């Protein structure tokens, strides 16, 4: 555990208490069973916003507490533990980061206070294929009058059904795969020509396919600079990846602890199965991996807070390491629980499904291992 300030410890403790009491895994189960198309419980998200969690990284002048990414990571770790479904990551971290890093005063004024208050949900609309590839942008933004006209489709848009505003990556020049010629746009969900369709994924969280058909936006919808949006997008993505890594760390820790409890209670051959060395050493390996992953996640979040030049390297390290760890732990959770872990009535399946969706989001392990090597020149 990173060395925390008193305020950070209080925030973490508050998040732990609230998630354990108000948002245990049974709450997620209830939401899933209800078929809620948003993929989260709006009442629960309102409570999170009231506690100030949606404003943690937002400057005070826009209604936030300017408390930093490590602090928001502490909250996300706790929500990850209980698989709390909410747009916290998409709106209060990803979209908020895009506005903080690239927004004009007017753009910030228009959206950050609403995001901080939990009144508006923002999200990134950046994926066009089954694999994370932020430079493979085909969605076209062509000059139209004083502004642009957007046409194309985005998939795997997290919280896409709830979003009131999208941060859309579009191509203003070049071809898909070029980093130059990518421009970020702020597009309200109610803009003419925007339509969305629920993307039903195995993890039951909120996701959508969002279509843009001749969506007219003004020049003031450009976030950052036209044609030069890729560097900004990478910065935003690194923040989102670090936050998601914290959430995944929490999920992995809880999956491990739930499994460890089972090893101590399940009796076969007249003894608890946790007495078997074959299982003990696998548990020790998972514990070791979790500790290593924690170091990477905390280092990435701290690097963002310090605006350190090694943010991209540390973020890719964190996403890959915590991805590998969650992958392993979620598989072992099912295997060590045996038959009961295969049943829908047990929580193990929730962790397994969430693991794979979270691994894929903002780039999986293979993507980030390759990126780590490219950053380091090999």
């Amino acid at each position, binding site marked *: 555990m990173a*060395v925390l300030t008193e305020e950070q410890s209080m925030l973490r403790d508050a998040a732990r208490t609230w998630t354990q009491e108000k948002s245990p895994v049974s709450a997620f189960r209830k939401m899933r069973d209800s078929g809620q198309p948003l993929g989260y419980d709006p009442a629960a998200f309102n409570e999170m916003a009231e506690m100030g969690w949606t404003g943690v990284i937002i400057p005070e002048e826009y209604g936030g507490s300017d408390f930093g990414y490590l602090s928001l990571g502490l909250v996300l770790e706790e929500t990850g533990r209980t698989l709390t479904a909410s747009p916290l990551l998409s709106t209060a971290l990803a979209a908020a980061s895009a506005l903080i890093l690239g927004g004009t005063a007017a753009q910030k004024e228009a959206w950050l206070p609403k995001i901080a208050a939990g009144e508006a949900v923002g999200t990134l609309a950046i994926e066009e294929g089954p694999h994370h590839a932020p430079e493979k942008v085909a969605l076209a933004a062509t000059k139209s009058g004083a502004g642009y006209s957007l046409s194309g489709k985005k998939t795997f848009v997290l919280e896409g059904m709830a979003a009131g505003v999208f941060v859309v990556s579009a191509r203003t020049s070049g071809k898909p795969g070029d980093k130059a010629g990518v421009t970020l746009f702020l597009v309200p969900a109610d803009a003419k020509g925007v339509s969305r369709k629920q993307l039903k994924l195995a993890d039951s969280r909120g996701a959508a396919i969002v279509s843009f058909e001749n969506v007219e936006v003004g020049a003031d919808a450009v976030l950052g600079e036209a044609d030069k949006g890729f560097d900004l997008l990478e910065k935003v993505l690194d923040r989102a990846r670090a936050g998601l890594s914290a959430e995944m760390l929490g999920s992995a820790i809880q999956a491990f602890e739930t499994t460890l409890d089972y090893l101590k209670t399940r009796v076969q051959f007249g003894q608890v199965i946790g007495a078997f060395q074959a299982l003990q050493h696998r548990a020790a390996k998972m514990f070791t991996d979790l500790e290593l992953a924690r170091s990477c996640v905390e280092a990435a979040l701290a690097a963002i807070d310090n605006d350190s030049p090694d943010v991209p390297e540390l973020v890719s390290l964190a996403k890959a390491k915590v991805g590998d760890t969650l992958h392993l732990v979620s598989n072992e959770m099912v295997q060590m629980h045996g038959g009961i872990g295969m049943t829908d009535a047990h929580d193990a399946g929730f962790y397994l499904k969430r693991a794979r969706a979270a691994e894929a989001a903002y780039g999986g392990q293979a993507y980030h291992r390759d990126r780590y090597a490219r950053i380091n020149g090999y």
Partner: protein
Amino acid sequence: MADFGGDIDAFRADAKSWLEANFPASLKGKGGMMAIEGETPDSAEVKAWTHAMGEKGWGVPTWPKAYGGGGLAPAEARVLQQEMNRIGAWNPVGGMGTMMFGPTLLEYGNEEQKQQHIRAIAKQEVRWCQGFSEPGAGSDLASLQTKAEDKGDHYLVNGSKIWTSGGQWADMCFCLVRTDNTKKHEGISFLLIDMHDPGVEVRPIKLIAGASPFCETFFTDVKVPKENLVGPLNGGWTIAKRLLQHERNGLSGGGGGGGGGGMFGVGGSPASMAKSYVGVDEAGRIDDADLRSRIIAHEMDTKAFQLTAFRMMAEAKSNQGPSAVTSIMKNAGTKVGIDRAELILEVMGTQGLGWEGDDFKPDELQAVRGWLGGKAITIFGGSAEIQNNIISKRILGLPDPLGPSSN
């Protein structure tokens, strides 16, 4: 010096001027293997540097001044290390005396023992070796059989030890002996034995990498004075466990760099070596997709281990108390070390398999020995399997499958 009334900057200035006055510039950057107890005759400069550091107590900077240590606060010791790094100076005082035995004796020894032994370690005057493992007592250390019989005014020791690193050069041995046959753990005592006694015979062991610092040690009717018993009779196991903690901390390599593997092998990262031995494609990637992906995974493991070592130090500094993370350091560090040696060998190809001769560069000859010698790091100091047992039992609270025969 422990009080922080003084300014840390003032200490830094003092350390800087003392180091510049006493560290011979010709020894710059020549630390490395010299710190490990060895047979190499020291040059006059090394002797002078060792003497100066010994007198100052800065070879063991945080040990109490009353016993010849530096008496520095941890923050001051860090500053000292930074200043040493800055000018390429290295600590000439090392070995098992400083890493394991000294800290243990400071905790468990009586006043006479501390006065007698600690200062000599701080001055690098007496070299120590470890008499723990026996041919029949490896991972199950507490089954050891070397016995010490009470003969009134002395103990009579008979038996044999194995893997006594540096035994052929050691002056003294801190040894686990059986003083009660009726109990396992509670029949073990912690005894200090003079290696120059005529009843002590040491035979070096040749390993798969060639010559090694490891020895077999035989004790035949060795008379050991009663005052050489550390702690209570039959109370040696507790002391041994504490000492093994010091050993593990030392072997995991703390500050990183490959965890224990740093003692072996060659410098440079597998990634950078692969760029020259394997080549790169037009995009600058290592030109072997499979090897590249395994190198990447290893480099990331290395970074994760280093970050964990930093986290552990930060936690220790903030006095949050010892955290569970320390328990994983040996396995995590040695995995990185072993993987690194394997990858370097593979990266070098057949040039990494040279045993001797001028067809191979010194780094290449070192790589094959580092690879072979490095296999020891997941075996000694408590094997990887024993570490996993410890994590399972002490951290995760799982039942002990070995029952009372374990510790």
